[in-house]
C-alpha cells in the first residue's frame, strides 16, 4: 500500500545523454535498508544509461562527507548526498558542487538547493498511530523507544508524531520516552534492559498495553524482556531486518505490527532524479516522500523472503562497486 503524499512523483525518462552519478557507499552492518537503496540507485542509473561512480566509506557523518568531497574530484555530473549528514551539514559541499557545475540530489535527507527523496517520517508516525489506536480501541498506556534523541532525526520525528497523535486521545497515556543508546552499543541488550526495568516499574499486568520501538534491535530486546518476565503486551516496530522479521514471524513473539521504509523505492526515485538532473532536464528543488510499507504479524514470513531476495540482489550488484 502507498502513502498519500508519496504518490506525486514525476515520471522521468532518460533523454539518452550520458551521465556520471557519484554515490558514497556508507552503509554498515546494521544499515541493510540503506544498502537496498544504493542497490536501486545503481540499478536505475545503469538502466537509464548512466554511469555510477562510487566510493566505499564507513557508516559515519565524517566518512560520508569525505566520500562526497572526494567524489567531486571524479568528474561526476551529479552527486547523491546521503543519510547521515543533515541539510545544513552538507550545505558547504552542495555549494562547492554547484560552483563546479555538479548537480546534487538528496537521498533520504534534504539537500540545500536540491531535489530530494525523503523518508516519510510523519506518515510512518501516523500509520503507526492509526494502527495502534484501532488496535487499542483508543484506550490504554503505551511507551516508545528509539535511539538517543538527536542521534537520528527521523526517529525523533516519528516519536514526536506518535506522541502528538496520542495527546488527542483522552483515554490513551504515553509514558516518558525510553532512550535506547546508540548504534555503537549492544542495542538488543540495551533494549532488553530498559524494558526490564520499565516492566518492574509497572508490575500491574494492565498498566502497559503496548510498546512501540522505532529501531528493530530495541524491538527485539523489548520482546525478549516481555518473554523473560512473561508479561503480555503488544510490541510494534519500525524498520525491517531479517532478524526482526523472523522473530516477528514466530507465533509466540509479541511483535504484531511493523512499518518500514522501502529504501529500494526511494533509491529508484533518487536514481531517476539523478539522471534527469545530469541530463539537464529541469527538476524542481522539491522533496518527494517515499511510500510506507507496513505489515502485520501474518505477513512477516512473506516480507522476510522478499527482503532476503532483495538483499541478495543488492549484494550481488554492489559487489562490483566494492560494496
Amino acid at each position, binding site marked *: 500500500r502507498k502513502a498519500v503524499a508519496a504518490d506525486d512523483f514525476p515520471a522521468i525518462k532518460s533523454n539518452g545523454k550520458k551521465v556520471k552519478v557519484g554515490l558514497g557507499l556508507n552503509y554498515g552492518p546494521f544499515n541493510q535498508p540503506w544498502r537496498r537503496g544504493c542497490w536501486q540507485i545503481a540499478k536505475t542509473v545503469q538502466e537509464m544509461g548512466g554511469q555510477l561512480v562510487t566510493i566505499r566509506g564507513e557508516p559515519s557523518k565524517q566518512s560520508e562527507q569525505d566520500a562526497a568531497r572526494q567524489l567531486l574530484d571524479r568528474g561526476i555530473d551529479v552527486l547523491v548526498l546521503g543519510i547521515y549528514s543533515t541539510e545544513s551539514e552538507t550545505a558547504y559541499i552542495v555549494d562547492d558542487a554547484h560552483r563546479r557545475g555538479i548537480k546534487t540530489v538528496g537521498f533520504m535527507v534534504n539537500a540545500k538547493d536540491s531535489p530530494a527523496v525523503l523518508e516519510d517520517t510523519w506518515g510512518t508516525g501516523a500509520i503507526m498511530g492509526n494502527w495502534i489506536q484501532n488496535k487499542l480501541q483508543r484506550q490504554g498506556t503505551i511507551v516508545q523507544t528509539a535511539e538517543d534523541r538527536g542521534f537520528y532525526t527521523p526517529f525523533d520525528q516519528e516519536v514526536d508524531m506518535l506522541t502528538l497523535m496520542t495527546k488527542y486521545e483522552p483515554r490513551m497515556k504515553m509514558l516518558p520516552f525510553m532512550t535506547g543508546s546508540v548504534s555503537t552499543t549492544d542495542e538488543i541488550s540495551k533494549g532488553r534492559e530498559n524494558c526490564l526495568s520499565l516492566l*518492574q516499574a509497572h508490575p500491574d499486568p494492565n498498566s502497559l498495553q503496548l510498546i512501540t520501538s522505532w529501531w528493530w534491535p530495541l524491538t527485539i530486546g523489548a520482546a525478549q524482556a516481555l518473554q523473560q518476565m512473561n508479561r503480555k503486551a503488544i510490541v510494534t516496530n519500525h524498520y525491517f531486518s531479517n*532478524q526482526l522479521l523472523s522473530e516477528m514471524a514466530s507465533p509466540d513473539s509479541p511483535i504484531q505490527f511493523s512499518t518500514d521504509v522501502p529504501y529500494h523505492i526511494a533509491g529508484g526515485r533518487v536514481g531517476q532524479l539523478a539522471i534527469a538532473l545530469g541530463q539537464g532536464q529541469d527538476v524542481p528543488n522539491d522533496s518527494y516522500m517515499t511510500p510506507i510499507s507496513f505489515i502485520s504479524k501474518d505477513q512477516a514470513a512473506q516480507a522476510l523472503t522478499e527482503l532476503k531476495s532483495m538483499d541478495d540482489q543488492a549484494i550481488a550488484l554492489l559487489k562490483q562497486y566494492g560494496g
Partner: protein
Amino acid sequence: MAGTTVNSAAERRAVRSQANLALGILKRWGTIIVIVLVGLLFAVLSPYFGTVSNFNNILFSMIVSALVSMGLTYVVAAGSFDLSIGVVVTTVSITTALLIPHTGWELAIIGALVVACAIGLVNGLLVTYARLSGIVSTLGMMFVLGGINQYLTNGYQVPVDYGQVAFRFLGQGRLGPIGFPVILLAAVFVLGHILSTRSRAGHYIGAVGDNPMAAYYSGILVYRWVIVAFILSALFAGIGGVILTSISSSAQPVGGEGYLLEAFAAVFLGATILGKGKPHLLGTLLGVFFLYMVSSGMNMVGISFATRQLFNGLVLILAVGANALLNREEIHLKFI
C-alpha cells in the same frame, strides 16, 4: 638505633590507629556509602525499585558488562590498558553461534573461549615482546577484530536455534528467583577474586603493575604476567560473549564496543572503593553494579534523556569524589 626505630615505628602505628578510628571507616566506605544513598534515593522515588525482582533484573542486566570489566581489572592492575575487550565480546559471541551447529554447544563454548585466550595472548605479546604501546596495539586489535566480525557475519546476526535448550539455559534459565547467568557471574567472580587475592598470578600481576622494575629485579617474569593479565581480560570478555549469545539466542555482528567505556568507568570507580586506590575485582564489581543500578533506577523514575545523563555524570563524580576527599594522603600526585 634498634631503639629509635622501635618507638618511631610504634609512634607511627599509634598515630595511624587513632586516625583510623576517626576517618578510617569513612575512608574505606566513602564510595559505598554514596552507592547506598543513591540506591535509597531511587527506592524512595519509585516503590518498585527496592524489590527483590528488580535487584535480580539489575544483576541480570549487568552480567556481560561485569565480566568485561572484571577482565579489564587485571590488565589495569598490571599497568596497561586493553581497548579490545568490547569487540572480543562480539567476536567470541559470533564464534560460539557459528560453532554450535557444527560442534554442539559444549565444544562451541570451549572453542570460543580458546579463541578469546588466543586474542589475549596476541595482545600480550604485542605489548611485551613486540614493545608496542598497549593503547595503540589493543586499539589496532579492536579494528582487526571488527573487520573479522564482518567477514564472519557479512553484517547479519548469527541465530542460535531455539532448540538449543541447554545452551539457552546458560543465559536465560532460572534457579528459583535467580537467573542462572547471575549464578555464573557469581561463580566467575569468586574464582577471579581468589585468583587475584590468593594466587601467585594475582600477586605478581599486582607487583608488575605497581613497580615493574622492582618486580623484574626480584626475578619475577614480568612479561609472562602481563601476558597472563591480557589473556585473563580477553577470557573474561569471552565468557561475557558466550553468555550474551545465550541470552539473546543469537550473535550480533557489532555492538560489543559499547562495553568498553562502561568497563573503564567501573574499573576506575572500583579502584576508589574500600580506599584501596588500585583496581581490585570486588571494587570493579561494585562499580558495575552502581552504574547499572543508577540506569535502572532512572528508567523506573522515568526521567528524560537529558536529566538522565546529567545525573549519571554527577553521581559518578560524586562517588569517586566522596572517597578521594576522605583519602587525603600527604601529597596527591596521581592524575590518571
